């Protein structure tokens, strides 16, 4: 009964970003610094009832002001906490990011080789945060289960018997608790959750010389496979964005209490999308969120981590995966001869490739209290079907093509461009007229007399540059 064992994640609050409220937990800042985080990143490595959660924060304010309170399913000892590098999380993010690919049409008059190129990376995100604490206790029904410093963080693990006491303890210890948090804390207390409270130890941080906060990792055993997002929605200022990178052994991860749907993929889009891929993806995601009434969790990537095709970033080497918590590959991660598939320009295999060992599911969710009243509950399935958010550019042939096949090819282009424009408009909700204008000025003309004319040298030069 293996599905029984799921972990709970306590996700984190750790994240704080300058423009949004903490995601899974709430930010507890000492001064009046509003902690926003529009986007938080969490890597969850999970197998059976063992879970390792890596929480990257995008907090960029004064470390003194940073604090997080995260519900966790068990007491966490010092050995269960580790601090890692932002680069690692950024790598996972880049590897799994939605991607744009491009193809070049061959000379219609002369069969040729087709090139494939990849482009694009992913969502960028920030770093960590800090906090603050103190201790008072038993009278409030709060027990300090453990207290230690790891890396630049001072960490306290609390258990509590009543939410009022916990709230008072946190407030007296200098944490700014949002109104309305008490009921949520009470619910977690009754569910036997503990509280992971972290703040930045300035001395340690100075010693390390790091100017940013590094991701905190927590390893635990529990049948709860979930991420607590409720604290983070208490004081949220508008919807929040969460990226979850699930690393599992058997296959894809789905949410069991919210619909999980794949983001639209595989469409041909106009060439100018290349210079505004970020805007394109954001607009498309907005459109999808609206279409689904902001009640779904989106899959942006699902793939065996041994390889990628095309790659938005190199596959992640085994030692780094192990650092991210995929404990089950521990014994086999020595090999490191990269396996390249002959002839593949962009497909890459992981050093020490073992296709069955780590499967990534990148989930992206925009949530608020009204649409996501419950914590996110997960299930690992045996679904190993690969999926990627992938958008395609097809460059028309721009050389000479004065043959019958060439004429037919040119005659077919306007219809193809129209389809691309239509795809883009449907995906993003962008205005069709603007799309047409941009296409015209980018060499994708709908005018038959313009078609087939090679681009001017200056058009070629600036074709894909941002305006």
């Amino acid at each position: 009964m293996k599905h029984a064992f799921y972990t709970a994640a306590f996700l984190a609050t750790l994240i704080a970003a300058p423009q949004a409220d903490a995601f899974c937990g709430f930010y507890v800042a000492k001064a009046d610094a509003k902690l926003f985080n529009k986007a938080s990143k969490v890597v969850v490595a999970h197998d059976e009832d063992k879970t390792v959660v890596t929480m990257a924060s995008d907090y960029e304010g004064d470390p003194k002001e940073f604090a997080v309170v995260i519900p966790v399913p068990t007491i966490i000892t010092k050995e269960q906490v580790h601090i890692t590098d932002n680069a690692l999380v950024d790598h996972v993010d880049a590897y799994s990011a939605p991607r744009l690919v491009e193809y070049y049409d061959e000379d219609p008059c002369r069969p040729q080789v087709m090139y494939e190129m990849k482009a694009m990376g992913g969502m960028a995100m920030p770093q960590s945060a800090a906090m603050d604490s103190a201790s008072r206790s038993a009278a409030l029904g709060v027990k300090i289960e453990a207290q230690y410093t790891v890396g630049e963080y001072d960490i306290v693990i609390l258990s509590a018997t009543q939410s009022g006491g916990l709230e008072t303890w946190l407030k007296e210890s200098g944490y700014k608790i949002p109104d309305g948090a008490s009921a949520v804390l009470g619910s977690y207390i009754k569910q036997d959750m503990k509280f992971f409270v972290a703040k930045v130890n300035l001395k340690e941080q100075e010693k390390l010389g790091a100017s940013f906060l590094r991701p905190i990792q927590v390893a635990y055993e529990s049948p709860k496979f979930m991420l607590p997002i409720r604290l983070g929605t208490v004081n949220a200022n508008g919807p929040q964005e969460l990226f979850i990178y699930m690393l599992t052994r058997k296959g894809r991860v789905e949410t069991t209490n919210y619909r999980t749907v794949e983001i639209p993929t595989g469409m041909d889009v106009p060439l100018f999308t290349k210079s505004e891929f970020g805007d394109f993806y954001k607009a498309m995601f907005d459109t999808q969120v609206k279409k689904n009434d902001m009640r779904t969790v989106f899959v942006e990537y699902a793939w065996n981590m041994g390889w990628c095709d095309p790659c938005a970033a190199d596959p992640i080497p085994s030692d780094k995966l192990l650092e991210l918590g995929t404990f089950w590959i521990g014994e086999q991660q020595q090999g490191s001869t990269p396996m390249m598939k002959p002839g593949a320009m962009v497909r890459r295999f992981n050093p020490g490739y073992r296709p069955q060992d780590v499967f990534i599911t990148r989930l992206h969710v925009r949530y608020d209290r009204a649409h996501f009243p419950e914590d996110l509950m997960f299930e690992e399935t045996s679904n190993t079907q690969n999926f990627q958010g992938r958008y395609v550019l097809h460059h028309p042939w721009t050389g000479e093509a004065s043959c019958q096949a060439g004429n037919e090819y040119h005659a077919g282009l306007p219809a193809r461009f129209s389809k691309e424009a239509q795809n883009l408009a449907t995906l993003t909700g962008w205005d069709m007229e603007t799309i047409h204008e941009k296409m015209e000025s980018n060499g994708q003309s709908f005018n038959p007399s313009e078609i087939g004319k090679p681009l001017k040298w200056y058009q070629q030069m600036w074709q894909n540059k941002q305006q």
Partner: protein
Amino acid sequence: MAISLLWRDPRHYQILSLSLLLAAGVAWLGFDVPYACIGVIGGTALLTQYAFTRWLRLPSFDPKSALITALSLCILLRGNSPYILALAACIAIASKFLLRVHGKHVFNPANLAIATFVFFHQAWISPAQWGSAAWCAFLFACLGGLVTSRAKRADVALVFLACYIGLLFARAFWLGDPLAIPLKQMRSGALLLFAFFMISDPKTTPDSRTGRVLFAALVAVFAFMLQYGLYIPQGLIYALALLAPLTILIDRLLPGRKYVWGNHSKGEAV
């Protein structure tokens, strides 16, 4: 007249409503069910039914129950390969003929196959695939089923839902959670499908009304414990599969009249 005859056997309505639910899931909710899988599951279920009909020399081949099982599997079960799904369909139908006590099969066929394949990680279910938007339409389809089946065994579905939803609200009340949480939890297409098409299967529920009420309540409590106490997301499916053998005991303690499809007692369909 023709219509009332048609609805006399509640399986006709079930086949219709399950087909519509499947079509809606594929068309609007993006269920990942390739047509080939529907064909493979349906074909295997019917073939298995036919093979057992011949083997056991039953008076006639009745495809209706096999179709209902196949449709339930298509709606709920997902697998990496059509062979796995075909095997699930085969096991589901075979269980009706092989696992019998006192002339009744012990397990709901689809439930047994799903529980087995999910437990061994050979396939998976997506409990949240319906979301909550489709819930109202879903509810109407299910309630329609009750009306057309003249509430013959509606007691099981209703008692189960009342107990399960009651527990959801009790939990929220105890935790101090907002009502939005249990309301969201009860608005689940998977819960309705389970209540109206799986646990209420008249062939695998106790014969007496008291027995059925007891059985439905037990499944609800057990499923709730699995789901919210042990954090097993497929609590409903496991609870029914594990408690199904209890019907044998309940039928012995609280005997009743055995259910016959369509209310005609000649040549019992399996």
